[in-house]
């Protein structure tokens, strides 16, 4: 703004805001955001289901824990994005590798936290349910599941945050048809820094919105209401 830096590279706030409104009015930004959100929803759903199942199996069976835990703990610290080129080779370009990678990356924190949650269920709760004549299924449904839920929620939260991070980056690499990551990456070719910054702002807003509008109410409705977690 002081002319120290070329305005092409560092556009003023007025430019960014104007571009932001222009892109929203023309429907470009909403279309890209919807594409990204749809991909996030499908990928995260896959990852959440796989992660919860994996975590439950690991938590309930010693044998499964011994075999699966080493695999999960080595896979967990590898950045999901590092798999992106491999997924592109295996599954081609477009939506499929992006969705699969998102699910893959999200499954690890969900599995680890579900496993921790199941193990944190107090043995005395299970024993008292057994003493009251509960069967295996009932113990699982009425004791283990609610007991593990706070940790599972934490895992889902971490998984969603990770999925969101990976998705934005992977959209840059797999040339999906519509997506916020692709929007930013494509705008670089035209030196449209205002479009890039507007896209980044939307990414930040959506990330904040997912946390505040999806998870906090969900947590209130389940964990806090059942008295598993004081707020």
């Amino acid at each position, binding site marked *: 703004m002081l002319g120290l830096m070329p305005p092409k*590279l560092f556009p003023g706030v007025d430019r960014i805001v104007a571009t932001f409104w222009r892109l929203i009015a023309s429907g470009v930004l909403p279309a890209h955001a919807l594409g990204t959100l749809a991909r996030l929803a499908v990928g995260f759903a896959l990852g959440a289901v796989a992660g919860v199942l994996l975590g439950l199996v690991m938590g309930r069976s010693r044998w499964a824990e011994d075999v699966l835990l080493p695999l999960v703990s080595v896979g967990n*610290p590898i*950045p*999901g*994005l590092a798999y992106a080129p491999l997924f592109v080779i295996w599954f081609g370009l477009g939506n499929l590798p992006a969705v699969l990678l998102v699910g893959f990356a999200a499954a690890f924190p969900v599995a680890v936290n579900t496993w921790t949650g199941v193990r944190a269920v107090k043995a005395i709760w299970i024993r008292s349910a057994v003493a009251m004549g509960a069967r295996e299924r009932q113990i699982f449904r009425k004791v283990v599941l609610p007991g593990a839920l706070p940790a599972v929620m934490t895992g889902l939260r971490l998984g969603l945050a990770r999925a969101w*991070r990976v998705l934005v*980056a992977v959209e840059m690499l797999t040339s999906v048809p519509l997506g916020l990551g692709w929007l930013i990456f494509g705008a670089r070719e035209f030196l449209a820094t205002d479009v*890039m910054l507007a896209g980044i702002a939307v990414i*930040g807003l959506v990330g904040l919105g997912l946390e505040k509008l999806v998870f906090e109410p969900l947590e209130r409705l389940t964990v806090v209401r059942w008295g598993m977690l004081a707020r």
Partner: protein
Amino acid sequence: MRLPRTRSVVGAVIAFGASALAWEVFARSGSLPPAITPPVEAIVAAVAQMVRDGTLFVHVGYTLARIGAGLALAALAGVPLGMLMGRVRPVERFVLPLVSVLSPIPSLAWVPLFILWFGLGNTASVALVFYAALFPLVLNTWTGVCAVNRLWIRAAESMGAGPGAIFRHVVLPGALPFVIAGLRQAFARGWIAVVGGEMIAATRWGLGWVIFDSKEFLNTDVMLGSLAVIGLLGLGFERLVFAALERRTVERWGLVQGARP
């Protein structure tokens, strides 16, 4: 430290053996071309080759240097900022909204912009690590300073400690567990950022770059080998470096007992 049980060691061996075997069967079944799914020995040979000609060490060195520089800069900026936020009200009121808007933006979303601003190469990767690592450090340090027990400060005051002494002997050690937890998170985030940043912004060396570059030549064995190196390094840093750091400082001063991994 808990010794690993023989049971879990056996389990780990079975797990890795079984998955290697499954991969081998899948790779040799011919359902997909071997260029896409290389057998295990090809992956091992690729890593061995990279070790022998020394390129692996150069890649690892570059990646570690980038994340080290980014983390160091983030710690130099983030820890004092977090401390200031915890101790000085106006700073907190000014910085906190900025941090909470910027921190949910994935660092990799900035890559294309950072390339335009800093050019291809090291600066963009280091800046990316800095961005990714800054927020966990600031937020954790701030929480840590706020969580220092009021009683400790008042006790120190009544024993005649000045502000400098209180800061050095009460606030600093009291906030340290949080700072170290922040450093741990910052490393995890920086590790993702450096690999992703190298894929897009690096020009010659780096573990992320080598994966991306091998894709061009369909060297899937090199890609899978580098992935394994990335995973092992990340796990190693988490388990060895940060666990040791925690034992050396925080546990020794008796602030947390036996922090579990």
